[in-house]
């Protein structure tokens, strides 16, 4: 069996209040990926649609998109793992291609979040946790991650300022990413300025500035077998390693609150499959739904020892010109987090980086990149390693 390559990537701009329906939103990411790959709809053998269904009025959106994108009569289906849906879609596409069942598969991620209020959105996302035993207490994603932040601070002396520095970095790159929803700079001082929205309390110790922005968006990743990938002529980026894991939904079933076990396990698997280690990674995208999530990712993926993640951000090592550039597209914090589209957008960023097409965000000559995409409160974890 040959390698599996990514031959096209695309995403819509991530925005508040997309002025169109979900099929039109999905078309934007698809169009960019198809033009990137230089292929036509006849070349796609199957499509996989990824989102978090609690936002969708449309039941079974795969069929609607297949029709709108001209991907009928080829097979299409829907897949979900909350915020990691589209990297789960990529893993599934890899399996379909690697098995020889299909030659070319399109992974379509999307979410249209802005039709409901933020408080409604918190309630729906909160239902990605244990609705029987946790949600009745009034839980929401920021509060769960805040519990991890509290434990991390207690054990390792991580400070709210360390977390704020991660937001400052995200905003540095959000400003230069034309696809990002949040294009403004963020200064550390804003976190201690009661007049700044960044300092607003959400769930202690996390503040508004520690939380990613909801957005509407779509992404598309087109995967092909080695023969087709080479034949289409675009320089393919190869999938070198894939790892995935799960843990208990209810926090009561977990033992670790200073890191995500799914990220550690998925990372280990992906590194083993790719035959590389954390030191070989030249550029990474990690799931920074909250600042603490990026801090834990540094440690769970082996870029820093447990408790040492703060040194990476204090030393600006995760900036574009640092030793391990991370989220130099603005991350979820500034680029925005349209749930089902996020994993595909992260993959797109790394593919562009490895091709040397990332513009102002370009890291110097990267050969191997990593994508860490998490679903729920560290419930599902996918780590994907890509190489030229």
């Amino acid at each position, binding site marked *: 069996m040959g390698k599996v390559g990514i031959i096209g990537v695309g995403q819509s701009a991530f925005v508040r209040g997309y002025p169109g329906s979900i099929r039109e939103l999905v078309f934007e990411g698809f169009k960019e990926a198809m033009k990137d790959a230089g292929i036509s709809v006849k070349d796609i053998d199957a499509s996989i649609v990824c989102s978090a269904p609690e936002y969708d009025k449309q039941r079974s959106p795969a069929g609607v998109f297949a029709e709108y994108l001209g991907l009928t009569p080829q097979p299409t289906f829907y897949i979900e793992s909350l915020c990691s849906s589209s990297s789960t879609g990529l893993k599934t596409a890899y399996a379909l291609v690697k098995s020889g069942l299909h030659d070319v598969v399109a992974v379509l991620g999307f979410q249209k979040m802005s039709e409901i*209020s933020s*408080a*409604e959105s*918190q*309630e729906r996302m*909160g*239902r990605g946790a*244990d*609705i*029987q*035993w*946790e*949600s*009745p*207490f*009034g*839980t*929401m994603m*920021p*509060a*769960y991650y*805040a*519990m*991890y*932040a*509290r*434990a991390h601070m*207690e054990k390792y002396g991580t400070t709210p300022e360390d977390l704020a520095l991660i937001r400052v970095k995200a905003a540095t790159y959000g400003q230069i990413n034309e696809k990002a929803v949040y294009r403004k700079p963020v200064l550390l001082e804003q976190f201690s300025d009661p007049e700044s929205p960044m300092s607003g*309390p*959400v*769930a*202690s*110790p*996390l503040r508004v500035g520690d939380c990613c922005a909801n957005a509407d968006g779509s992404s598309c990743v087109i995967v092909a077998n080695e023969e087709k990938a080479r034949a289409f002529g675009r320089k393919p980026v190869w999938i070198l390693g894939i790892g995935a894991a799960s843990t208990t939904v*209810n*926090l*009561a*079933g*977990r033992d670790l*609150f200073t890191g995500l076990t799914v990220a550690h396990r998925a990372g280990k698997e992906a590194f083993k499959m790719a035959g590389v280690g954390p030191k070989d990674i030249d550029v990474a995208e990690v799931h920074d739904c909250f600042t603490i999530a990026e801090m834990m990712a540094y440690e769970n993926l082996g870029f820093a020892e447990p408790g040492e993640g703060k040194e990476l951000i204090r030393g600006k090592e995760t900036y574009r010109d640092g030793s391990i550039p991370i989220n130099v597209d603005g991350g979820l914090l500034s680029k925005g987090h349209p749930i089902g589209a996020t994993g595909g957008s992260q993959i797109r960023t790394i593919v562009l980086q490895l091709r040397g097409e990332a513009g102002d965000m370009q890291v110097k000559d990267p050969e191997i990149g990593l994508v860490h995409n998490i679903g729920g409160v560290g419930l599902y974890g996918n780590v994907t390693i890509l190489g030229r």
Partner: protein
Amino acid sequence: MAKKREMDTRFSKFGTVSFTAITKVNDFIDYLEEGSVMATRCTDCGMIFFPPRADCYRCLASNMEWVAVTGTGKLVTYSKLQYAPIGFGDDLPYAIALLDYGDCKVFGRIAASVPEDEIKIGMDMKTVANRLPDGRLNYVFEKA
């Protein structure tokens, strides 16, 4: 005509807003009414489950007995919310937390009577059945 089957929806009384009405562990609610917070224990293998469950995945059996969550647990971590999901705004501010009892952990809320500056990770707390002002039921963590 067949008589309409009565549904046992006791669990809909759990918490500020319940998202589950029917479960095989509905008796949890009756115990809460009586002031007890209960876990389940598999009578085949002895494993204790909190939250309580009806089925043991190890034994592939459903032989459970109720056991009280007693004594004290250590506060693992917590967060105080200043912003709430829809339906919980009137409860603000409130803190969610996790206690470690050794053989199980309990996820819940810290009692509103505990001042935030007295909350310390590692402190001993107990889980207490609680009736909300509107008559609904949950449990809260109090200082031991």
